């Protein structure tokens, strides 16, 4: 059994985490200051509400969303919090360095809005970790967080400077980026579980309920996520309403189609986790321009169908052909609906252009396709890079028999056997 013991990360993990923390403190010391601009009570209330909702989604929602594995609940929730804390600090710095005001003053102004924006960027790590959850240790996740946040910021900067997109539009490609990042890393990890250990990546009643807690928090607060970065009041209102209706439709679709898809006409909890959120993802890029609820509802319906359809049909292809083991069904919750969202955005833009100026239509279509493929390519490439880094010896990767097992990472004082 000796070789199968998880390698101790005793020295490496503290070393890495503390090094990062010290680096952050130093960077914050030299480059940040408070925003001294005027902020009246009403504005504060608005920013604070968004800030709080994003924090709830990141820490609680995404934490428990991935906790459906029966032996991996502790790690899902706790690693999520660690990555959020690390990712936010790094993202605040990166986004600050890329701001225009930094080149002028040499200082990053810390505002409430810069924190919630950074938290949203950090959420790409929390999303993509769903694909290889249970296979990576905390040391590997630290590296993943840093690489992925950097890559995502790079992609966002490209969007904003090359394609002239605003904060909201560039942020909404987070789902496509994170999903393909996660899948690529999972591909690098791919190894089938040894005999006798197959049951570990299954769910159980109580852990499914914990996952439902996370899903419900995500579901409730998704309208805040989609409207957080919009400037105009009208855009925010549309975004909230469209997301709300799309989510409602996708939840209904998820539950009804899930019953239809199973042989005994029973509802599958895992499908519900995956598909109830698809609507919110699918309206992401277009939620501020869709002008009537029925469009959003159709998008929600399509997203729910695609998500459930994906769960039914794609695992065969992904598992057997590509040997990707997608732990939490990330591809169906975020990947496919994210693509749908990108395609909708292309179609809506073309539709708008075709009314006004027809020679531009080809150009617009090309740009939009370029945006979507850049998001995907960015995810795939940085995912590949991360996957290769994680395979290095210094990461202390644990043995395949210890996948999906909390015991490798946690001290269990009283229940060493048969938890």
């Amino acid at each position: 059994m000796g070789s199968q013991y998880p390698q101790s990360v005793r020295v490496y993990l503290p070393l890495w985490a503390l090094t990062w923390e010290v680096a952050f403190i130093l960077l914050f010391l030299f480059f940040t200051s408070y925003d001294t601009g005027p902020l009246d009570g009403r504005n504060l209330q608005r920013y604070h509400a968004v800030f709080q909702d994003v924090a709830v989604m990141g820490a609680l929602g995404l934490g428990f969303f991935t906790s459906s594995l029966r032996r991996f609940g502790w790690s899902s929730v706790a690693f999520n919090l660690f990555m959020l804390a690390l990712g936010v600090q790094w993202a605040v710095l990166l986004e600050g360095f890329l701001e225009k005001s930094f080149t002028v003053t040499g200082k990053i102004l810390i505002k409430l809005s810069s924190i919630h924006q950074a938290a949203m960027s950090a959420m790409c790590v929390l999303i993509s970790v769903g694909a290889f959850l249970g296979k990576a240790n905390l040391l590997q996740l630290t590296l993943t967080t840093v690489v992925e946040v950097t890559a995502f910021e790079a992609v966002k900067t490209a969007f904003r400077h090359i394609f002239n997109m605003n904060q909201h539009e560039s942020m909404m490609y987070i789902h496509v980026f994170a999903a393909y990042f996660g899948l690529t890393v999972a591909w690098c990890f791919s190894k089938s579980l040894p005999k006798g250990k197959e049951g570990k990546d299954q769910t159980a009643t109580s852990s499914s309920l914990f996952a439902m807690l996370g899903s419900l928090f995500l579901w409730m607060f998704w309208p805040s996520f989609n409207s957080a970065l919009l400037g105009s009041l009208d855009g925010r209102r549309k975004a909230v309403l469209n997301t709300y209706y799309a989510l409602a439709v996708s939840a209904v679709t998820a539950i009804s189609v899930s019953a239809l898809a199973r042989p005994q006409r029973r509802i599958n909890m895992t499908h519900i986790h995956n598909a109830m959120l698809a609507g919110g993802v699918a309206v992401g890029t277009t939620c501020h321009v869709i002008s009537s609820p029925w469009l959003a509802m159709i998008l929600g319906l399509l997203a729910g169908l695609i998500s459930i359809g994906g769960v039914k049909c794609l695992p065969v292809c992904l598992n057997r052909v590509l040997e990707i083991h997608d732990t939490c069904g990330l591809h169906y919750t975020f990947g496919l609906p994210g693509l749908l969202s990108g395609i909708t955005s292309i179609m809506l833009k073309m539709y708008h252009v075709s009314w006004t100026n027809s020679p531009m239509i080809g150009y617009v279509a090309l740009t939009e396709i370029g945006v979507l493929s850049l998001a995907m390519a960015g995810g795939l490439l940085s995912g590949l890079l991360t996957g290769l880094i994680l395979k290095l010896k210094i990461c202390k990767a644990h043995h395949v028999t210890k996948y999906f097992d909390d015991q490798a990472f946690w001290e269990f004082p009283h229940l060493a056997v048969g938890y």
Partner: protein
Amino acid sequence: MRFKFPLMAIGLEVAIIILFFFYVEYETDQTTNQQLNRTNATGADRSMELYPLFQDVHVMIFVGFGFLMTFLKKYGFSSVGINLLIAALGLQWGTLVQGLLHSHGHTVHVGINSMINADFSTATVLISFGAVLGKTSPIQMLIMAIIEITVFAGNEYLVAEQFKASDVGASMTIHAFGAYFGLTVAGVLYRPRLKNGHENEESVYHSDLFAMIGTLFLWVFWPSFNSAIAGTTEGQVRAIVNTYFSLAACVLTAYAFSSLVDPRGRLDMVHIQNATLAGGVAVGTCADMKIHPYGSMIIGSVAGLVSVIGFKFLTPFFASRLRIQDTCGVHNLHGLPGLVGGLAGIVAVALGASDKSTTAMQAAAVGSSIGTALVGGLITGLILKIPILGQPSDEQCYDDSVYWEVPRWREHDRHFHEPIIHKQLEPEL
């Protein structure tokens, strides 16, 4: 238990209603303006702007603190249930006592602000509840809530009105006070027969996940807790930003040190549940001062470190040498980080981050918080020792079934405790 508890609870409730009849009124636009003109002039509708902050604090008190204590395998009902009971009683009593102290015995005008302050006052009891969790009866908790909130209100009045010390997130007046109060009570109520632990004083896999719900709610809403009573909008923004970065930094150091103190580099769930919050406690006193984000990150890192070290080394020492059985480890989550917060406040004032207070007054605030907590805790502990209050016997500690109807079939027992044979507690020789 059958008659004593209902009679006591209803009696208290009737008494509070009568006192409310005589002393409490709603605030009107006129009274709000009068109050605000005293502190700062921002207009009457500022009161309603606090409502979202109040809501966040409310979530922390009832969901956050409630679930944080559900880690014991057979004590989840009591943790959440008694938490609700004492918080609901405490906020009424807190409104009354704090209001009367601040209005010098005249009619109290309640608004959103007093709701926030009342929730704060219950937090002290909930922290102390953590120290004695599993070893007390609901009746004892009612008595403790009444006494502790009274003492807290006195200390808070002293700190805020006499010393005029700055303590916006209440590191000293709530966290350090609540922790040392609870520890003193736990010390007075020491049970020698539980010296070697109790078979129920442990967690199971899912009870720890429930506790994690509490942790995450507290983590997410802590910025609201620290900024709720900041006077100005500017101060509020600073409090939110500082608390957020302190918490983020604290998470990193807590994980790092939790891994470092284990021989095989594994994490400990107890540390993760508690030490990740220490940053919020520690930054409380100076949250609205101009300490810069890096300052709050340093405070958070230190708090995470102190908290993990406390859990690993101090709690066993307390239990064995000082005869204090601290069930939830409140000393490490609230006591030590609260002291760190008090010291940070002194240093920050000395460095000129705030001109509202002086170093001496900050130090006096730390001293008076700890002092009143120890004295109040001692008196309360002696009162709670009176043997008619329905204390559970040593065998019945950490068990819901003494005070609750529990479902006969417990999933956890069957799945998780096959190897453990039912042991009887043996009396100490």
